[in-house]
């Protein structure tokens, strides 16, 4: 093969591969920030507001969870909130004490007795949430009673 042909082929091929690679990196980075809403920090503290998008592609605003980072205090995972392009909140999600055990405040569901629950009246609520009712079943439902009462 002629030298010129060989050289142009090599350059063109490498060029094409680089373009493809760049396009791929760009495509990956726009879908990169996986939006996960996680519970935060200390007990009794406020949970950070997470504005999560419902579409499959994340927009710039939102809450992002970083990788586990090892610090001298242990392993830290940080959650940042971005709105209008600015970081508005940073929360440490998980702290490991020196022994390496993670101290995580639990938001788990625990048993609660019926007797502890304050009785509720349908006349005091604006809406009722239950398993989806059909249009026919709606008529007998509490929601329809509330709708009729016009609260």
């Amino acid at each position, binding site marked *: 093969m002629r030298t010129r042909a060989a050289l142009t082929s090599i350059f063109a091929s490498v060029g094409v591969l680089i373009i493809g690679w760049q396009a791929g990196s760009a495509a990956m980075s726009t879908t990169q920030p996986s939006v996960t809403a996680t519970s935060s920090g200390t007990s009794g503290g406020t*949970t950070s507001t997470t504005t999560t998008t419902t579409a499959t592609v994340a927009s710039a605003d939102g809450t992002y969870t970083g990788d586990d980072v090892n610090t001298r205090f242990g392993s830290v995972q940080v959650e940042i909130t971005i709105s209008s392009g600015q970081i508005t909140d940073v929360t440490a999600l998980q702290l490991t004490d020196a022994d390496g055990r993670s101290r995580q405040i639990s938001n788990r569901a625990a*048993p609660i007795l019926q007797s502890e629950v304050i009785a509720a009246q349908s006349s005091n*609520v604006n809406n009722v*949430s239950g398993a989806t009712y059909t249009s026919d079943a709606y008529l007998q439902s509490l929601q329809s009673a509330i709708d009729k009462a016009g609260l």
Partner: protein
Amino acid sequence: MRGTFETMGTVASIVLPADGERVVASIRRIFDDADQRFSLYRVESELSRINAGELSLMSASDELRAAYALAMDWHLRTAGAFTPNRPDGAIDLNGVVKAMCISRAGEMLFSSGLGDWSVAVGGDILCAGHSPTGEWNTGIVDPFDRTALLCSLPLGAGRRAIATSGSAERGDHIWTLERDAAAEFVQVTVIAEDICIADALATAIMSGGREMLDLATDTWAIDALAVMTDGSLLATPGVRSRVTA
């Protein structure tokens, strides 16, 4: 004012300020359009055609593929507890579509300049601002006596959405995972800032049981109330503080 209309096989109830009547029709359109596309009760809907094999997923509309992608995303995130595939292999996007429409209705309401409203569709509710009575008090139905409420709690900033899943009337989109011979829960209610998260997780926890409930509360900023088959209740700290004295 309150507007109600039938859609997606159930009934939507919208609470708006007095002058909000004008937007009810627009909200209805959002649901009707989605129903046209996704209803499995219409033979000519796009989703029915896909299930019948007349149309391939690859050549479906962008909206349908986005809904499917969202459902698959939830499928992954809930380790399979949430699934849009029925046991017979057909795709049922009823779960995500309803929530997507409620969410879209909310966006539309905000952009119409309305900041105090609630949108309730078949038991899923999203609200904003203040209710006519102050807070948006929402009751949770007792699964064993549908004329009574288990409890009621206020929805507000950070927890504007509530969704309940139950093995009751329209539980078609909940397929209990194989490993649970019998479902652990009779009803699951999830409260979150986002209605899609609340709806997907309520469905996932119903089919995934206790394990999924723990995963959900560990991973997402939600609160949950689950009713077990024997009537006993499980509640996250956030629910407990709101429903107890």
